[in-house]
């Protein structure tokens, strides 16, 4: 019995030996560190959905042709759950064990802050597409050559915030009341926008609220007494629904916001006069007018086998996601290499990609892309204005 077992093991070993080592096909290895579950998961969830679809489409078409050879893409997108510790563990595995050189994410600033110092150790050997707001101030700084931030910065020269403040000025606005969430992003938003408003000659009055606030009637009454032309109310839908509804009850009917959906405007369409909002893309309308968007939506439904497309979350695809996988593949083709990070980065910085968004990077890796401004009027009529890079 023992002899037969040894014979079996020996023959099995011989068979494996005769078969020779299995040579894996060389692949382009991309990692993605995003929160797919947890309270801050909507951004990362949509980003990973987009990246998975892009990788599937590229691989189905035979891979990326670089230097006459086709490479499939191998995407690893674990769930950070929004935890900096998880993000760091996952990034270490991606860089040290899997030898990935291209990372999508993180979108969350806390995760970026948790991985930034470690990632700096790989400067020159890594490209990280990090949409996190905390990444923006580091662009172009020594040791951060690995960093690209695909999202346009609000108050950059081609930023949507700059455009929208100018839009308010042209409408004759003199006073804007800001009612902002008292947290890191809220403080940051007020800091960057107060200068823009000052430059445009618009007076501001700022009030703060805590994340747990549901009843804004007192602070809104104080704001109403100041008689502002527009209210700039927070940045999350959870707050916007309440603020917009309660503000209209007090006669504040004009809103201007740089984060948040059109949902609060549509819900209160009978009582608002104007609701101006930044939208990376209004997918509901774009589906009817842009064949690329229509195809994307169909492909998304087919790939994820879902009946309904997540129109509310889809604008978040402008984070490091669908377009950026194609952009990266295109840069590799142009660079003639899948491993020469410096050459790939050089191509990324010099190209304009026309995907779901028209987008490019500035000289330090800051994103510049097309976006839309929505103007919702009383009754629910929506006017969209498309702003393309360089069109201002």
């Amino acid at each position, binding site marked *: 019995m023992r002899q037969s077992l040894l014979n079996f093991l020996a023959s099995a070993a011989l068979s494996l030996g005769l078969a020779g080592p299995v040579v894996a096909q060389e692949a382009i290895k991309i990692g993605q560190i995003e929160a797919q579950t947890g309270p801050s998961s909507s951004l990362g969830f949509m980003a990973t959905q987009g990246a998975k679809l892009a990788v599937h489409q590229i691989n189905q078409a035979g891979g990326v042709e670089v230097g006459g050879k086709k490479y499939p893409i191998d995407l690893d997108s674990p769930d950070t759950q929004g935890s900096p510790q998880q993000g760091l563990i996952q990034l270490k595995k991606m860089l040290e064990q899997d030898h990935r050189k291209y990372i999508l994410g993180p979108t969350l600033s806390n995760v970026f802050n948790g991985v930034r110092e470690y990632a700096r150790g790989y400067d020159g050997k890594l490209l990280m597409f990090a949409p996190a707001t905390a990444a923006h101030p580091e662009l172009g700084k020594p040791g951060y050559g690995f960093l690209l931030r695909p999202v346009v910065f609000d108050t950059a020269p081609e930023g949507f915030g700059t455009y929208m403040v100018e839009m308010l000025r042209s409408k004759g606005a003199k006073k804007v009341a800001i009612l902002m969430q*008292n947290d890191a992003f809220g403080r940051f938003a007020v800091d960057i926008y107060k200068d823009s408003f000052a430059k445009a000659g618009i007076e501001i009055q700022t009030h703060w*609220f805590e994340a*747990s606030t549901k009843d804004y*009637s007192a602070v809104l009454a104080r704001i109403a007494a100041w008689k502002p032309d527009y209210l700039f109310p927070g940045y999350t839908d959870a707050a916007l629904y*309440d603020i917009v509804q309660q503000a209209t009850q007090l006669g504040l009917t004009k809103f201007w916001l740089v984060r948040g959906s059109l949902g609060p405007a549509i819900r209160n369409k009978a009582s608002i006069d104007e609701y101006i909002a930044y939208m990376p893309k209004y997918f509901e309308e774009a589906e009817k007018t842009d064949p690329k968007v229509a195809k994307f939506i169909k492909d998304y439904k087919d790939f994820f086998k879902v009946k309904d497309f997540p129109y509310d979350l889809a604008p978040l695809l402008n984070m490091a996601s669908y377009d950026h996988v194609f952009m990266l593949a295109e840069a590799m083709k142009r660079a003639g290499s899948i491993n020469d990070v410096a050459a790939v980065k050089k191509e990324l910085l010099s190209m304009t990609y026309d995907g779901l968004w028209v987008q490019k990077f500035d000289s330090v890796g800051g994103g510049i892309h097309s976006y839309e401004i929505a103007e919702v009027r009383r009754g629910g009529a929506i006017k969209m204005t498309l702003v393309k890079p360089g069109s201002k």
Partner: protein
Amino acid sequence: MMQLIAGQLINGIIVGSLYGIIALAVSLTSGITGVVNFALGAFMLVGAYLTWHLNETYSVAFPFAVILVMGAVALIGLVADVLLFRHTRNNLINGLIVSIGLVSVIVALVHMTWTSTPQNMQPFVAGVFTVGGVIVPKMKLLMGGVLVSIVGLTYLGLTRTWMGRAAYAYAQNPEAAALMGVATGRLQVGVAAFGAALCGLAGSMYATLYSLTPDIGALYMLKGVEGALLAGIGSVIGALFGGMLIGVAEGLGSVFLPLAFNDAYGLLMLVLVLLFRPAGLFGGR
């Protein structure tokens, strides 16, 4: 300024009645079962989402949705009591741990079912009343009226019916009540289900005023506990008053101070009451 203060006084009373109804649920269940059931906040959360879901998805008229939700949440409260809290009677720590565990499960289920995307329901009654420059939304007035009426009916039920008097008797002396023929087991389960139904009602009223996110239960539960302790456990009218006191403090406080202080008023008053009148404002000395 006077208009602003008057408006916030009215607003505080109405918002406080929402805290008061949860305080009443806390007061009743803890008086009868000996446990502060933190899952009551989660029952309110379920009530809010169910109301929104019935109204928006199935177009169930708001008043009918409220009745259905109160029934459904009462059933959830009853099942939770029979399966879980029956085993933690008069054991504060065990009851607390079980209720916190139940909160986690319910919040996770709400996340799974309705996601973390904020939801919003149209007010059942739109528009505002404006009197002397003071603006009060009609829906808030309706909510305040409904909640005060329910507290009043509960008070009548507890003082004028055999069951109510039995509940009071049990809260004062469980053994004597049992010897007098009070079916203590059924009484406890009944009060637990009634407390859950009150939270379902609070959730329904909340849903027609504010946006829904899966984290609302914890905050309102805290206000409810504060309101119940301010009043003194077991006081029905006191629970409503305790809730209103917190609501008014928040309303008037936010006229003069930043909204960041809103959650501190109730706790500050609670500290003072516990220092100088530990049995609560309406409790015996």
